[in-house]
């Protein structure tokens, strides 16, 4: 069974490649919970310690991806365990055909849309365009679908930190 670090790196490589170095650290901090986890999401408007404000250095977003995965545990478990996993694979192999996706009405697609919307809701306030947020969502799913049983363990680890 792959480790937390493995999944953190895989997800970062697919979604935010610039944060690959940090992904294992951030994932572990998220799973550890408590103040370590809180620090990942703390925003302080106006408080600047150095000569440049946060807009100059940018913000890391991989923790928000992990957070969305953890919050969407039931949805993801449904997708990963879907009897119609072939449909899911069909969809994720054709990510560029958005109009085709939107024409599907089955339950699996609805779950996909819920997950994509939750990622967009979390990442768009950080300044990412909606299209990029959707891309991150679907690439995350692509990675998780490579090994659903192991992915479920990773998702559960993230989810347990919220409890």
């Amino acid at each position, binding site marked *: 069974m792959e480790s937390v670090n493995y999944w953190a790196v895989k997800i970062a490589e697919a979604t935010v490649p610039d944060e690959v170095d940090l992904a294992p*650290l951030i994932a572990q901090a998220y799973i550890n919970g408590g103040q370590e986890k809180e620090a990942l999401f703390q925003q302080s408007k106006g408080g600047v310690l150095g000569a440049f404000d*946060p807009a100059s250095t*940018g913000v890391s977003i991989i923790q928000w991806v992990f957070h969305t995965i953890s919050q969407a545990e039931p949805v993801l478990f449904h997708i990963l365990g879907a009897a119609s996993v072939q449909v899911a694979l069909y969809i994720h192999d054709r990510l560029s055909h958005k109009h085709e996706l939107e024409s599907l009405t089955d339950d699996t697609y609805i779950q996909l849309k819920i997950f994509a919307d939750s990622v967009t809701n979390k990442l768009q306030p950080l300044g990412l365009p909606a299209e990029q947020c959707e891309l991150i969502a679907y690439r995350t799913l692509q990675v998780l679908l490579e090994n659903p049983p192991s992915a479920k363990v990773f998702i559960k680890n993230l989810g347990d930190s919220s409890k």
Partner: protein
Amino acid sequence: MNSSNTLKFNPLIPWLWFWLVFYIIYTPDRIADWINTLEHAKHKMPQAYNFTLQIQPLLSTLTNIGEILPDIAVFIGVLTIFIPKLRTLLINRELKRRYKCTINDPPNIPAFSEIKEFLSPYSKNIKIYFTLGNVTPFVYPIGFRDSAIVIPASLVKLWRSERSRAEAILLHEIAHCIHGDVIIVGAGSLFEKIFKYFLPISILSFIIPHILLTILNGVYFYNKYTALGVPPLSIIYTRLTSFITITLPGLISLTTAYLLWITGTFMLPIAGIWCSELYADRFAMEASMSSKGLRDALDKQQARFSWRHHLFSCLSHPPPNLRKWFSEKYNSKYSFPILFAAIYPMAYLVKLVILLIWDIFVNITTGKYLDNFPGNIDIILNSLKENINTYFHVLAPTYLAMSLIFLVWPITVRYWEGYFSGLNKAYNHASHKIYISCSIIMGTLYLFST
């Protein structure tokens, strides 16, 4: 990456330290002034009414305390410079309280190893730390010589996505360590914090006694004239008219004068702080041989959240537009001499102008300049001329010191920066001519002032 051993840096005078040394030298005189001010406060009548109230001497004293509070604020800030370990405690506390994070040892990840390798040519005496918190990179002292730089996760990401911007930001921060600024300014600096907290306290401690006195005067006259049988409405009307036409303009004028006084008090340390920030920007450009990274970082700076935030930010950093302007002049042959020669010495002239305007406001408020105006214009002009002469005369030792420092700095800079950085940098000796010219100018000013 360019090694500091192959580059030649322009030696820039640490004006902030220059200000600090002179501030410490004049501290005994300063304390004597405060004692004198407080002693005379009890006898000073802020308003020309011939009555006595037990509370009035107290309010007069409070007003005078308000006048010296800005200076006391700077003094306390200077005292905290001598307790660098306190900064470490304060930084850790602020990180926990505001950002919910801690400072950690560097993680064993490739990006961080690259960052450490990038910084290593610029300093041996700097500890490098890491934090997962959403902060910007910052430096703080861990002793009188050694300092630390904290690199957040966001910068590690930036290192991968926009290398030149990340390098510029890192070089700016490391420059403060090399130049010896960190012990005075930087994250957790009480020196800067005190400016921020004392500003509203000073204003309130000055204004509130004046407002209270106005109210007490009103109550006094109301009681006095009602006892004499004057209709209450008539008294209220008279007092209100007096308030609007005399008292309120006087309060506005006094408050404006007070704000000018505060500006004059903070002018020089803030000029020193701005110099240290602009020099750090300059170092970042020289070390990377390009202004692109720094300009990109400054372009991304957000518009300040409010005018209040903008004002307090200016206490610790030059406005972003000014930094951008200097970065655009990177290749200009005038930006270098302007940077090190003009800003700090010019601050003395700006301070003179502010104090002259303050003096005019005070004399208008007390009525001194308004008596027989414009017939007394010669007296006013002579008074201003005398103030200017006195100011330059008092500054004579400062001009002499500036002249000497321009002369010796190209030689001594390597020892100064070597002490803080542990490295031996190469310096651009072509700038010697500019230094000698500035030394002559300051020497001339000294002779003119004595």
